[in-house]
């Protein structure tokens, strides 16, 4: 890793992903990045926990490809967060199922995500735990330190917090633009642009 240090801390791919060299991607063949996604140092993705049992695509698997973690565009994985596919007993045998992130998903520092799906325009704060097979819809804000229990469904425009997490508020009409991560994407990388004032 030392040999590449000269080229800055991020690897920038042709699809615009910015992956920190210190990021820990395991089983990369099972990880899909939509592009323009930032993965900061110490962020961990457990691609190796891929599906073993063959499940009908009804459970949301893209036919054929055995993707463990699929990430959309303009996602931001902060330092030390961890993405791992959820696992469960299915038809008598244990299997992991894919974890899917939409676009413009922010994941805070030290957060662990084991959800089934996370929609688009979702902000997950720091030190959050998203339980297995949770489903987070679009435009959801998860406040710091929340624990989203397994199997919880969070509808759109919710603000959730607490241990266990509950819906504590609604995202106001004027708050939608705040989920955009384009600016944030530009603000990191090997030649970062400062955030606009």
């Amino acid at each position, binding site marked *: 890793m030392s040999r590449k240090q000269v080229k800055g801390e991020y690897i920038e791919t042709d699809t615009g992903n910015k992956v920190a060299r210190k990021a820990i991607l395991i089983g990369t063949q099972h990880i899909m990045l939509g592009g323009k996604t930032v993965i900061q140092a110490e962020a961990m993705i457990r691609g190796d926990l891929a599906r073993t049992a063959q499940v009908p695509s009804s459970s949301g698997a893209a036919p054929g490809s055995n993707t463990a973690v699929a990430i959309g565009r303009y996602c931001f994985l902060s330092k030390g967060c961890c993405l791992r596919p959820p696992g469960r007993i299915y038809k008598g045998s244990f299997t992991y199922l894919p974890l899917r992130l939409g676009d413009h998903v922010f994941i805070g520092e030290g957060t662990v995500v084991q959800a089934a799906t996370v929609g688009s325009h979702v902000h997950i704060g720091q030190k959050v735990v998203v339980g297995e097979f949770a489903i987070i819809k679009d435009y959801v804000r998860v406040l710091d330190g929340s624990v989203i229990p397994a199997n919880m469904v969070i509808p759109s425009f919710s603000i959730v917090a*607490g241990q266990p997490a509950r819906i504590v508020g609604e995202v106001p009409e004027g708050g939608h633009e705040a989920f955009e991560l384009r600016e944030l994407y530009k603000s990191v990388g090997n030649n970062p642009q400062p955030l606009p004032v």
Partner: protein
Amino acid sequence: MASSTGASLPHRALSSLRGTGGHAASQGTPGSPHTPTRPLSSALGSPSSSRADDDVVIIELGSRRMRIGFAGESAPKRTVSFSPEQQRRAGDFRAWEAGFEQDWRKRAAGKPCGADHELWQLDVRGQDLGLVADKLERELRDAFYKYLLIDSRPKKFTLVLPPTMPLPLLSTVLDTIFNQFQAPTVSLLSSPVMATMAAGTRSALIIDMGWHETTVTAVYEYREVQSWRTIRAGKLLVEETYDFLSQGIQGRPATARTERTENRSEKDAVSFEECEEVASRMLWCKRAAKEPDPETTEGLATVHEHEEIETTPPAEDQTPMAIPLKSCKPPKTLKIPFSELAEPCEAIFFETRLSPSCFDDHELPVHLLVYRALLQLPLDVRAICMSRIIFTGGCSNIIGLRGRIFDEVLLLAQERGWDPVRGKGVEQYKANPKLKRNGGRQAGDGPMPVIVQQASDGSEAEANTAPVRAAHLPQEPDLVEKLIRKESNYKPPAQGTLRAIDSLGAWCGASMTTQLKVPALATVDRELWLQHGVLGASRPSEVDVKSAQRQSMGPSGLMRGQASSQTNNWTLGVWGSV
């Protein structure tokens, strides 16, 4: 399980009509087929807005709690308990931040204990009524959009209010509802009457153990006859619990509180929230020191059965109960003997240490207050009320409290009878052999003594007292009585014995009343209120008379009109007297 499913077939059929299963029932909808109220309401309700009529919103308002729901439903949809967290700015989610619990001291700083948890203080002086309005509005909005799921189209409202509600507050509440929620009309009902209604009776003695005060209200034929108060209620209890706990934290035993109250210097040993939590969860109430002899009572048939089962009576039980406290620093788990957990109630509600003579009028122990209330009631009103005692209010949920109060009152009644005159003179008088018969009567059958001077103040009840007073003479056959007994519908009313009955609560009473289209005590009309709101608040009778007349023009108004005009004089007596 099996039985319930088997028996539930008709219910299934019903639910199948409604698509998904048995909520029709679950929400106690007026539409459930068996109730004849449907045709009734449609007959009375204005044809156009029949659905709007069903949607009358019922609000029971207290200083700590607010119950909100629809008329005709068996339970409120939303019970609000006011708390400081609801007073934050929009978009302020600090309550969910880590470590929020810990620094409660900053939040509590510089405020009277629990002030943030109250909608109002009874003492309106120097109170920001605007703030009350704001709190109320926010809670109502929240309830409407999150719980009742109604939008901001105008709705009729029914307010259930304690009789002790100060007028400025009443006007504030009405202002809020009319201005913020465009209510066409707001009907006012008094909570004791509604509690009576919800017990299935027409008269009762309501013992409302609330937050600021414990009020005892005699209701006769759906009208408040008289009301008594004492400050021995929730607030005192929580403060007492605070002392109780802070003692425990400092390791000292729960000593007599006379000494304890001195060192209430530091106000932040335990948080108010936790005090209340402990008060509602762990406190209980001892039995009366000496048991009343059961046969004189009805409601108490089962009182004594558990004695044998228990190894040691709870009062002597010293086994320590663990109470984990988080808000004190460092967090610690108190071990308090079970028996001591009864102390706060003992101290607050009964205060058996002190002699009855040394209490001020506003701080009478509850049992004395109840007894005195009964004593001051007109004879027949008492006879009816004493066998219809209803406990309401948060504190009445404390384990054993209701039974204790009842027993204490019973004891008082047994040893004193219903003779307001006490002391040596009476003793000698009773001792006097010439008056043996009379005296024996007085001492003996408590409920029905002669009390001439009492009957004088029995207002409309005056008439009925005649036959009762005749009780001492040989009974002569009463045509009317016979005739009444012929009635198919007739059941002899229980009276003369102390009996506690159970009420569904003021909110349910109001829900029923409104659905049955019973005219409210007063119905305030929007237009009128907006015109002379303030004036109305200051001299309510005017506004209400007007509104009543306006009402009478509306559909089904005749009854309403006459009713409220009839009721005005005494209804507003309740709030007017404040």
